[in-house]
């Protein structure tokens, strides 16, 4: 009897029963998406717009056009990195709402390195990369230390630190780093060409898109195949049990948050070196928060995040076209994003405990 049960424990399940749950999950998400679009259309109708035209404008200008598809990839860079910044700490049971602030600090440190390090041009980008990671990681490290040493809730401290980070960047671009030769805007000096991310030929998509794929692939490997990843999951699953199993919980909490922050910092670096070409105020259009939502939508899993940020990228690009085409504010698509997110969170099935 005992051996029979044990044998059943590790024998591989037949492929069909493995695919079936995946198929039903996909079906459920499709339903949620369709329902979200329908409700969004109703809201547009109620506001006196032609919902069909608006949705068609969104579709035509995003996934249906070459330019739109490129723009989706452009958006996927900050979305994807900020989503990973939420997902990595989430595996350790931490809620990092600080992607926005970590993004800004990464941008600040990368810009500082480029503008003032005096490094030879070949080293500028690698140094900016390191600066971005250190800036974002250190900023998240503040949250981690508050949590570990002072038991301060990381969701609250990371959220509040976002506003501090934005003001710090503002201080520099309005003050000491402001370009004396430039116009009267809060901009830093323009970066040299050597500090500009290369683009994939003929497009606006920078090389940073490979960073997104690389980070997500690394997440997959670490959480599936390494001891460190396994332990992070144990800490996230039950910190008390982890502590009693000899895992230094504090260490894992610190590093998962710091690495998450570093990834968000890389997004900031990619923004200033790839898109803006300088540091200025307001470089993030809620990227940290959209990444946060995408991570939850994707269940903090690499593949889920990739799908979620592609979807959010498409909606966001479509939203930009609404502003021009349908006279609607671009932010109106935030309604659609939140409808989809609520739908997905509400439709997650509860696993029933079998009694007896």
């Amino acid at each position: 009897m005992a051996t029979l049960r044990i044998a059943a424990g590790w024998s591989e399940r037949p492929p069909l029963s493995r695919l079936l749950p995946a198929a039903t999950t996909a079906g459920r998400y499709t339903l949620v998406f369709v329902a979200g679009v329908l409700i969004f259309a109703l809201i547009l109708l109620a506001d006196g717009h032609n919902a069909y035209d608006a949705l068609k404008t969104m579709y035509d200008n995003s996934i249906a056009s070459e330019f739109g598809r490129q723009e989706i990839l452009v958006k996927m860079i900050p979305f994807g990195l900020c989503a990973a910044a939420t997902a990595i700490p989430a595996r350790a049971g931490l809620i990092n709402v600080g992607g926005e602030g970590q993004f800004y600090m990464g941008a600040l440190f990368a810009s500082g390195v480029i503008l003032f390090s005096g490094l030879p041009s070949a080293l500028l980008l690698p140094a900016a990369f390191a600066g971005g990671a250190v800036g974002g990681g250190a900023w998240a490290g503040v949250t981690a230390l508050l949590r570990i040493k002072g038991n301060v809730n990381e969701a609250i401290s990371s959220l509040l630190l976002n506003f501090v980070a934005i003001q710090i960047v503002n201080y520099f671009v309005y003050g000491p780093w402001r370009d004396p030769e430039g116009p009267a805007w809060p901009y830093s000096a323009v970066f040299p060409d050597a500090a500009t991310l290369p683009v994939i030929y003929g497009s606006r998509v920078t090389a940073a898109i490979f960073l997104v794929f690389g980070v997500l692939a690394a997440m997959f490997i670490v959480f599936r195949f390494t001891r460190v990843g396994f332990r992070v999951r144990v800490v996230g699953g039950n910190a008390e049990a982890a502590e009693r199993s000899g895992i230094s919980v504090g260490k894992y909490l610190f590093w998962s948050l710091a690495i998450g922050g570093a990834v968000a910092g890389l997004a900031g670096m990619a923004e200033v070196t790839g898109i803006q070409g300088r540091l200025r105020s307001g470089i993030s259009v809620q990227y940290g928060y959209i990444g946060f939502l995408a991570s939850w939508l994707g269940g903090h899993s690499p593949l889920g995040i990739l799908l979620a940020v592609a979807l959010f990228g498409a909606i966001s690009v479509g939203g930009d076209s609404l502003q021009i085409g349908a006279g609607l504010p671009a932010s109106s698509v935030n309604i659609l994003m939140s409808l989809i997110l609520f739908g997905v969170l509400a439709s997650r099935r509860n696993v029933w405990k079998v009694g007896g």
Partner: protein
Amino acid sequence: MTASVGARVGSVTSPAHLPEAPVLSVRGLTKRFADVVAANSLDLDFYKSEVHAILGENGAGKSTLVKMLYGFYRPDQGEMILSGEPVDFRSPADARRRGIGMVFQNFTLIPALTVLENIALVTESRGFRIDFAALARRIRELSAQYGLEVKPSAYVRDLSIGEQQRVEILKALACDPSILILDEPTSVLAPHEVESLLEIVRRLREDGFSVILITHKLGEVFACATRVSVLRRGTLAGTGLLKDYDQRSLLTLMLGERAADESDPETRGGAALEDEGFALRGVSFKAEDGRTTLHDVSIEIRLGEVVGIAAVSGNGQASLGDAFLGTGSVIKGSVHVGGRDVTRDDVESRLAAGLAIIPEDPIRDGSVPEMMVRENLNISSGPGSSKRWLLHPGEIIKRALAAAERSPFPLPTLTRRLGSLSGGNIQRVVLARELNEHCKFLLAYYPTRGLDLTSTRAVRQRLLDLKYAGKAVLLISEDLDELRALCDRIVVLHEGAIQGTFLRAEADVMEIGRLMTGGRN
């Protein structure tokens, strides 16, 4: 309202001869979960003025049965007849309205509310105003009538487990039931609280209640039941008046012929080696909330010895594990594992020295509900866990299989998510993990709590096997009989200080009980 309970008094004096019809009958009651038949075509009758004990091992279907009676589950097949008319409960509220009350194993009280407010939650669900004064009067009457002493104005968070259980019983009684279900009521109680609970059950019976008592302890059945039904793997193995059964016949019904022949394991004693296993020397311990929970405690467990701690819950025994493991602050004294002072060492190196702990609360402190059983068998960083950077996919499976093979009882399917299992099964997984081949110094909290007879025997045998293999075992248990059967020495702890040490031969239950409750000479 208040008179109705009293009106039952004296209706039946001799429950053994019952010409009347049952208050509740079930016929062909069946419930399936996925491919498991938890209750298979059960036929049972429950009578007024009776205590009807439902006996069975873990997973025999006891809980499933009473959850159907209480409207928590709806049966797949079969019918329930209450006072001659068929009923179909859609919810526990339905069942309560029809006179069925239940006290769950896990309490459902709200700690931030008073006793009175907790009871009002179920009795005063309609209307705008709550007549607290009248309810308090009624509670005091019920308390006095059944010896359920508890202050209506006390906050539940300040009550002991035993008192909380009394509140649960009052809550059920306040709904004016004719049938009262108690689901393993003694499993959470300290020894001295059990006797007063059984007395309450007897009084309820004398007052005309039909009490349904779920248990796997034969002693309780003989102490207060009048009728007994035995479940085995979801089917009814036997039912009838208790006087027609004896201990042996009930055991046979519960376990089958062969298993009933085995007796409980008992230590042979006296084999302790000279070498020290693990020890505390003059340790004072401060808990997270700042209270000092251990005062100058010195205790030494030698290799080849089982030492027991007898203590009423909340008297510092919880801190022993933290002190040995290094998960709290030892403010004075030193901790020794394997003859080495480990007071300043971290958890990992203490585990590496061969320390293993079966935690006080396996679900809270020892399990990761989101992970599979086989992953939970691998979470320790102690000896035997590989230090390699890459986690070989086969390694977790291999180690889990080894743990399952070693395990003194069958484990649940290794790919099940731990959080989807029952509490007893989670405990088995944690036990199987901690009772590994590297364990040299074992601190076991209530290792048999909530386990059925077969598993309990297996665990007790395993503890003794460890002792005979020259390991050191510290056993913390609320079951004095268990301590007396297994331990070479019993140490009594009260309010964080050692009150006395008894050798097995001279262990006197009355004396131990007196010291446990802080009695002075």
